[in-house]
């Protein structure tokens, strides 16, 4: 008996890893196959490049420091959009193709294939993020003075927070059955309050209150300081503490929310209903 537990545990772990890998590769192949490699890159690059182009033209003559911030903001905005849209959209597509129930009935843990999808999104977003940084550097002459260790830590904490939020949003999409509409609605709020085009401090005072309870502004601010101005851990301490709280709380909240809403949908038996 005592020997069988590790065996089962190992097998479960293997299934989980395989499911994550399979869902990651399946979505990546599907997206490249549907759009073609060129189209695939184009769809990820068009929005951030055009947006940075507009902000660049606007900020260039007025405040070059804001331009550097905008490069980091839009780069982070790609990861935020990924959290908002990606997994929820996939679940909607699975529903449309009639395979959503099969996914939920597989013996693999939900977390594994959901994470596989999320990593797929993360991988795709890296293309978009890299292009934004490249455009900012080459076309607009933004110069980076990074504190590498601080950048890595801020980025990991930021991604963890977004990962949790992604689960929450996809769970809500499961209930509403319109993930894309939900993501578009939420992204409107996020782009206004998230400090993507400008620091949160540029918002009117009454808008800073809701902005401060979101992880976006503080994450972008910390990443901007760490990558543009070589900010030390000491300088970043207030932002890092808040980011750590977001990174610790949001994934747990995301998993709990997903589990709770999933049970609700399954009990109602309307997982596949539009």
């Amino acid at each position, binding site marked *: 008996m005592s020997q069988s537990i590790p065996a089962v545990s190992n097998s479960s772990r293997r299934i989980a890893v395989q499911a994550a890998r399979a869902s990651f590769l399946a979505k990546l192949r599907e997206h490249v196959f549907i759009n073609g490699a060129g189209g695939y890159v*184009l*769809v990820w690059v068009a929005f951030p490049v*055009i947006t940075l182009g*507009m902000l660049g*033209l*606007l900020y260039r003559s007025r*405040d070059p420091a804001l331009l550097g911030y905008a490069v980091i903001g839009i780069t982070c905005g790609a990861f935020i959009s990924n959290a908002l849209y990606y997994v929820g959209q996939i679940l909607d597509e699975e529903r449309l193709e009639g395979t959503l129930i099969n996914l939920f009935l597989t013996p693999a843990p939900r977390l594994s294939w959901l994470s596989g999808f999320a990593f797929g999104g993360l991988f795709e977003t890296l293309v978009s993020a890299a292009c934004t940084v490249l455009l900012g550097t080459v076309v607009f002459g933004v110069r980076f003075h990074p504190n590498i260790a601080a950048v890595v830590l801020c980025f990991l904490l930021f991604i963890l927070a977004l990962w949790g939020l992604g689960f929450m949003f996809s769970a809500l999409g499961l209930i509403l059955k319109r993930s894309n509409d939900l993501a578009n609605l939420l992204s*409107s*709020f996020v782009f206004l309050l998230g400090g993507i085009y400008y620091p949160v401090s540029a918002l009117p005072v009454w808008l800073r209150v809701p902005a401060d309870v979101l992880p976006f502004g503080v994450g972008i601010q910390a990443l901007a300081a760490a990558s543009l101005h070589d900010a030390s851990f000491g300088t970043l301490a207030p932002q890092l503490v808040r980011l750590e709280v977001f990174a610790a709380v949001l994934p747990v909240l995301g998993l709990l929310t997903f589990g709770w809403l999933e049970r609700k949908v399954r009990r109602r038996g309307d997982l596949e209903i539009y």
Partner: protein
Amino acid sequence: MIVTYRNPGAGFVATLLATSRAYLQRSSAYLIALIRWPLGPLFTFATWRVTYHAAGNGSVEGATVSGFLLVGVFGLITWTSSIWASGYAVEYERGEGTSASLFLTPASRAAVVAGYGLGSFVWFLPSFAALAFLAIVTGARFDIGDPPAAIAATVSLFVASLAAGFAFSGLFILSRKANLIANVLQSPAYLLSGLLIPLSSLPAWLRPLSGAVPATQAVVALRRSVLLGASTRSIGADVLHSLAVSVVWFVVGLIGLRVVEYVAKHTGRLELF
């Protein structure tokens, strides 16, 4: 029940109105869509209003920032309509499995595409109103010296939107990559048409491309007529430019729809995914 019209014009109008009605019913089927669509432009306005404030701009091309953005977001809504309503019309029908029926009916395809566009304009009316209110509250100042000029510019913007929708409708469905192209086309017009930033800030090499987008000169004319008191005579060239470009896009769209019809009837592959 089969309804026949002796007058082709009456048939066109009936198809146009029926399609618009269907578009509105479909769009309002989900509560989240009812909330999301009107709010989107308001948040875009607010986000760019703060962006201009952060950049330290108090005015843009002689107008208040709020006034400039009001017209720009108005243009952005019509561009969204070009892409996701009239442009996506045949693609929606394909997705729902009704494109074959559409091409078998004697109804005008152009009326269907225009019907989607019209439905979309009506769908966005609350958004237009809320946007105007928000712009006024945040400091937009208007100077309408010649109301017919403002009307002509508004009409040319709607015509530009419909023309772009016509051109996209054939392109989207023939490409079989409608969603990809729609997503890619969404944002360049924000830059090229000067919807969110002034045209004067564009690099010279982008200007010819900017002039080829039908909405560009219509937005210029609308800004000048409602924000700077321009007369019909002074915006005439802009309106004519916009209409001329719209005609070209419209013709491209009609050719595209013919090709779509040919593919639908002769190869039978239109409905394949």
